[in-house]
């Protein structure tokens, strides 16, 4: 069973439906015991980093997610949920993240060329780093496949764990993985057949129960 962590941020309808369309058993839950008993965890999120991190902390679910990830349970952060995996974000001040992946989250405004609109919204092609094997998360898709992005901040200083980038002026972090902890900046649940193939690869990873 996959637990989608519900800590009061965002709309989980499409995410839940996309997993169900793959035949996966999913539960949207804020119950620590359900998250602990799940085989895999999905950490969603939209909105501002500081607010979301605060809600996650207040609910106490931050510690549950960290403990379960440290036990080796597959964890997938999506969009802001991916950003929360990092050490910290500089979105409206400085806010600590879960610290599961080294790196920080910063505004793309200073790095994207003039004429590029911020937020980065739309379909963009995934590029895989040349110096490492393709991540298991992408085993059903091909380099160059397009996925759907909506974000103004991006993760940086995370080269060691980078598994995909997308060109928006510079190459921006599109996905990361550190052992069992994975994250996508883009929305697989809004990325058509390619997105579903990525979620399917996550579903196929070995449960830790």
């Amino acid at each position, binding site marked *: 069973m996959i637990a989608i962590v519900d800590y009061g941020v965002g709309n989980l309808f*499409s995410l839940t439906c996309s997993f169900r*369309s793959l035949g996966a058993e999913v539960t949207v839950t804020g119950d620590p015991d359900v998250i602990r008993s799940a085989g895999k965890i999905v950490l969603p999120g939209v909105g501002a980093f500081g607010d979301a991190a605060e809600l996650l902390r207040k609910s106490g679910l931050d510690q549950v997610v960290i403990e379960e990830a440290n036990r080796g349970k597959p964890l997938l952060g999506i969009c802001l949920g991916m950003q929360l995996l990092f050490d910290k974000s500089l979105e409206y001040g400085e806010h600590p993240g879960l610290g599961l992946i080294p790196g920080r989250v910063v505004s793309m405004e200073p790095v994207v060329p003039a004429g590029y609109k911020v937020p980065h919204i*739309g*379909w*963009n*092609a995934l590029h895989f780093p040349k110096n490492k094997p393709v991540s298991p998360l992408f085993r059903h898709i091909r380099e160059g496949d397009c996925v*759907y*992005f909506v974000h103004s901040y991006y993760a940086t200083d995370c080269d060691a764990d980078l598994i995909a980038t997308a060109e*928006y002026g510079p190459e921006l972090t599109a996905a990361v993985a550190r052992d069992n902890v994975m994250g996508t900046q883009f929305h697989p649940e809004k990325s058509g057949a390619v997105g579903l193939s990525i979620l399917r690869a996550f579903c196929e990873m070995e449960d830790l129960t």
Partner: protein
Amino acid sequence: MITKRIIPCLDVKDGRVVKGVNFLGLSDVSSPVKLAKFYSDCGADELVFYDITASAEGRALFTDILTEVASTIFIPLTVGGGINTVDDFDRVLKCGADKVSVNSGAIRDPSLIAAAAQRYGDQCVVLSVDAKRVDGQFRVFAKGGREDTGLDAIEWIKKGVASGAGEIVLNSIDTDGVKKGFDLEMLSAVCDAVNVPVIASGGAGCIEDFVTLFETLPKVDAGLAASIFHFGEVQIPDLKKALADRGIIMRV
């Protein structure tokens, strides 16, 4: 590079797609769910649903349909029509919409844009504008293009973006339905005025009209159309291939 987007628009009334739909191989041609699935499979980059019902029953039917679409189709969905309050945003977002388009509701109450952007983020708020040339000015029309508001379209759009609209749909009443191409002059004026994505609507009659749009105005992000897709005059896979062949970045 971010791709240009092709967006079919479905007008829904009492649970059915209106504007004739004429597809071979689709048994229920006016079913929004089947049509949405068809377009998604064809490579549509996003879908827009306009609720053109006035009645409460029709509105409830619309949200049921939206829920069904969103639970089977996993591409971005924009919903418009009858959006007058933040509660209306809430109603359609809960059913799986990703973006909400405001038009007359924002003209009546311009604070709606800021209120919605603050709650759901700029990326969620689409300002849809019906505009027409009047006395040498691009003028905003309300109520489906029937009522001249007296507002200058460029000023209205700038104000909307400053309030938090994350995207603009510009529908030119002058070119709408004429099928002789998009309103490049009006679109160019809007693209120069704001730095958020601009979606062109109104006037597409053939593949070449989209090529001209993106080649002439590289700042335009997307092309939206309804009947030419519904009637099969332009097939989305052919359109996207033709655009890609001309060097325009597409998701193919």
